[in-house]
């Protein structure tokens, strides 16, 4: 890097939430050099959380979730073109249209894409959807408007459950298939998973757990007509939404020597990417869903998150560090947090619920559908999840930050009848249909990961 970090050329690959917020922060911090954003989606940055909520309900149209701009970024936008390679020695990003973009510093913010249905022929049937982009949401919403007879949702993680909820709210018949023992169990463990299962059924979802979809069936015209399950049963369905989790968009850097693989691009607490030998680079940064970073609250294990709030916070830290010299750099330490709304519930989470061995209902009750579940690992608080009680979470965030003892001190006015901790029952992610949205992935920027090429 030559001279003033507030000058030179910065390239951001991935023009969505993390990319945009990083660009804005760069300018806020006084970066005066040239700034280029490369994104393979044609439209300007937009917000994804509404896609599985308001958009599916028809309250907001898929084209209307553009991200609000905090400030002008004076950037060169290269939208609709994919980055295909990275040459870290020559400091250039290679693009699908044969051009290249030179950089002094690079931010990788390529996020994730929907994990496709593994059988390409079945995936191509008309009526089979995934949900990641605004185009996906527009297509699905239009299809739901047409009033399908039954919607099959494959995978009951957050996205799958929200889609099922939206369909129910629209009065559609829904079947949810999940390989694990309950919806949301991979993110929230057994207690809240059981609650989610009960709730889905109470709302009329035909919920089938412990099964996998073995085949999607089409008619001669290539339209979906039904699905078969591993327990030998079968349903008629004219729409199927594949909600099997996300795949990190790292293939384009796979050959570059950056530590990148299916779990993301490994970076340090300052968002600087590691190379495959575990040596930290100083000109390649990563942020958002694509990044995998160490967190002191979780024993410095590398965290992979698919959380809106993390994308914003990490983008801000990455941008700050890109234009500030060493001693002024900041670590990305924010406690992970996300929210979801489904079946009339507002669910919020802080910390990492899967990093736990026990859970206790510290406030409220399952019966009232209003509660705070607190998660502990080896006697300290590591996460809390509220159901219809979001305002209570701030207290537990503090407990997480200070590694307070678990179970939390008793005495809450709305403490339930039996506040005894029970095992948190977080299943091995392998038994789930869908990938987790939070994953602790060990300590090393493991070279082997770069050799596993997904989807090729």
């Amino acid at each position: 890097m030559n001279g003033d970090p507030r000058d030179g050329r910065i390239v951001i690959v991935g023009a969505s939430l993390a990319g945009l917020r990083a660009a804005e922060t760069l300018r806020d911090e006084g970066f005066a050099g040239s700034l280029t954003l490369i994104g393979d989606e044609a439209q300007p940055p937009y917000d994804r959380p509404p896609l599985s909520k308001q958009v599916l309900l028809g309250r907001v149209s898929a084209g209307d979730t553009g991200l609000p701009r905090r400030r002008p970024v004076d950037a060169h936008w290269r939208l609709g073109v994919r980055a295909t390679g990275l040459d870290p020695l020559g400091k250039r990003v290679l693009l699908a249209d044969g051009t290249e973009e030179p950089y002094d510093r690079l931010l990788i913010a390529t996020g994730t894409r929907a994990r496709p249905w593994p059988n390409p022929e079945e995936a191509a049937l008309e009526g089979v959807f995934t949900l990641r982009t605004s185009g996906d949401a527009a297509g699905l919403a239009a299809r739901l408007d047409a009033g399908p007879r039954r919607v099959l949702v494959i995978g009951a993680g957050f996205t799958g459950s929200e889609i099922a909820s939206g369909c129910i709210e629209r009065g559609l018949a829904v079947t949810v298939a999940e390989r694990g023992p309950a919806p949301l169990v991979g993110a929230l463990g057994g207690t809240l998973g059981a609650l989610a299962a009960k709730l889905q059924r109470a709302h009329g979802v035909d919920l089938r757990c412990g099964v996998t979809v073995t085949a999607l069936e089409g008619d001669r015209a290539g339209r979906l007509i039904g699905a078969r399950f591993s327990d030998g049963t079968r349903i008629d369905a004219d729409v199927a939404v594949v909600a099997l989790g996300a795949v990190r968009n790292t293939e384009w850097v796979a050959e570059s020597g950056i530590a990148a693989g299916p779990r993301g691009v490994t970076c340090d607490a300052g968002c600087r990417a590691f190379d495959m030998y575990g040596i930290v680079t100083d000109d390649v940064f990563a942020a958002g869903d694509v990044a995998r970073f160490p967190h002191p609250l979780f024993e410095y294990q590398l965290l992979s998150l698919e959380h809106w709030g993390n994308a914003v916070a990490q983008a801000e830290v990455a941008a700050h560090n890109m234009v500030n010299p060493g001693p002024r750099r900041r670590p990305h330490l924010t406690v992970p947090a996300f929210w979801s709304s489904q079946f009339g519930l507002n669910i919020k989470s802080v910390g990492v619920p899967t990093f736990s061995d026990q859970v206790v209902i510290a406030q409220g009750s399952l019966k009232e559908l209003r509660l705070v579940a607190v998660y502990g690992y080896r006697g300290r608080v590591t996460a809390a999840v509220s159901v219809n009680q979001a305002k209570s979470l701030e207290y537990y965030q503090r407990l997480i930050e200070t590694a307070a003892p678990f179970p939390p001190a008793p005495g809450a006015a709305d403490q339930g009848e039996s506040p005894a901790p029970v095992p948190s029952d977080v299943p091995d992610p392998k038994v789930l249909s869908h990938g987790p949205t939070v994953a602790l992935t060990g300590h090393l920027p493991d070279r082997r990961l770069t050799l596993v090429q997904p989807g090729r």
Partner: protein
Amino acid sequence: MAADPETLIERITDYASRPDPYPLYAELREHGVARQQNGSYLVGTYHEITALLHDPRISSDRRNRTEPDEAGDEEQGIPPSFIGLDDPEHHRLRSLAMRSFGPPHNPGRIDALHGEITRIVQDLLAQLRTRDRIDLVDEFAYPLPVTVICRLLGVPTEDEPTFRGWSDTIVSGLDPARGADPTERQRAAADARRAMGIYLGELAASRRGNPGADMLSAFATDPGPDHGGFNQIEIMTTAVLLLIAGHETTVNLITNGMLTLLRHPEALERLRDEPALMPRAVEELLRYEPPVQMLPQRTPLADIEINGVTVPRGAPLILVLASGSRDPRRFPEPDRFDPGREDNQHLGFGGGVHSCFGAPLARLETQAALTALIQHLDAPRLVEDPPPYRRSPVLRGPRHLLIDHDRAGG
């Protein structure tokens, strides 16, 4: 004077401290958590207050105190309203009240008041402009929020003199330092609450046959969610809470606001030139001169440790919001009034599950009021500084604020 931290509450509540309690708050912050001679505990630092506001072991229900209040509310008065209850009861009642006040059931309610607030402001201003000396409190800052809350609830403004008396009595019952005759004061407060409750309950009941668009009508007729709607007692307590909250707080924010701006002419000029800055300036007022100085109602349900001090279960715990909002560990240059201040997470509306229910309304009223005042009062000047204050150290503000200005048209 021997600065004994055990007497801080006496000194803060002393009427002589009303114009400027802030040096006492600075002293309080040095002590972290200050145990008082009367067995109560004062907390005045920002981070500790926010932690306690969110701590589920801190009750808002006075009945959890080890030494119950002298005037047993139970026999004489009506039960506590939701500001004095804990979850889940608090949540149930607050949500029921919210159904007719804001999102998700009534998201447009406050915005719809915008036009009405502007009209009331203009009417009041038209009268002010006919005289060169005005009392901002009696002629503007008090009538505005009272008119608005009455419209909102559906209470006839003609009855104002009646419930103003009740309201004053109720507020004096909040005083944390028990003066000459606390029992008498609290009993009077309980009586006033009951009288006001009966009055509002009857009004609500009378709407059952022909409900209007007001909140009392909604309280009386809304069947509620699965848990059911309000019962008659709950209508009484909730309506009393809203009428008082709508009465005794915004008046102080508007008055403190004008007082502060007149003391900082450069800020006043800046706001005249840059009206878009007003929302931020109002937040700064909520930090710098907050109408609710402290929350005297909290009680721990278990022994809790704050900064190395154990506050025993059942002890009165007083959170001095106005002190927390001036904590230098949270706000740079806390004693400077900066209408453009950024990162201003003040404690003016409290925090946690009890955070102010009426905040959107209070903001709208105050922004409209101050914007109009600084635009339409020509060369306003304070007649006396400090002005005379109201008694209450909790809901603190001037009793009168005399202002001279150049009358419209000379």
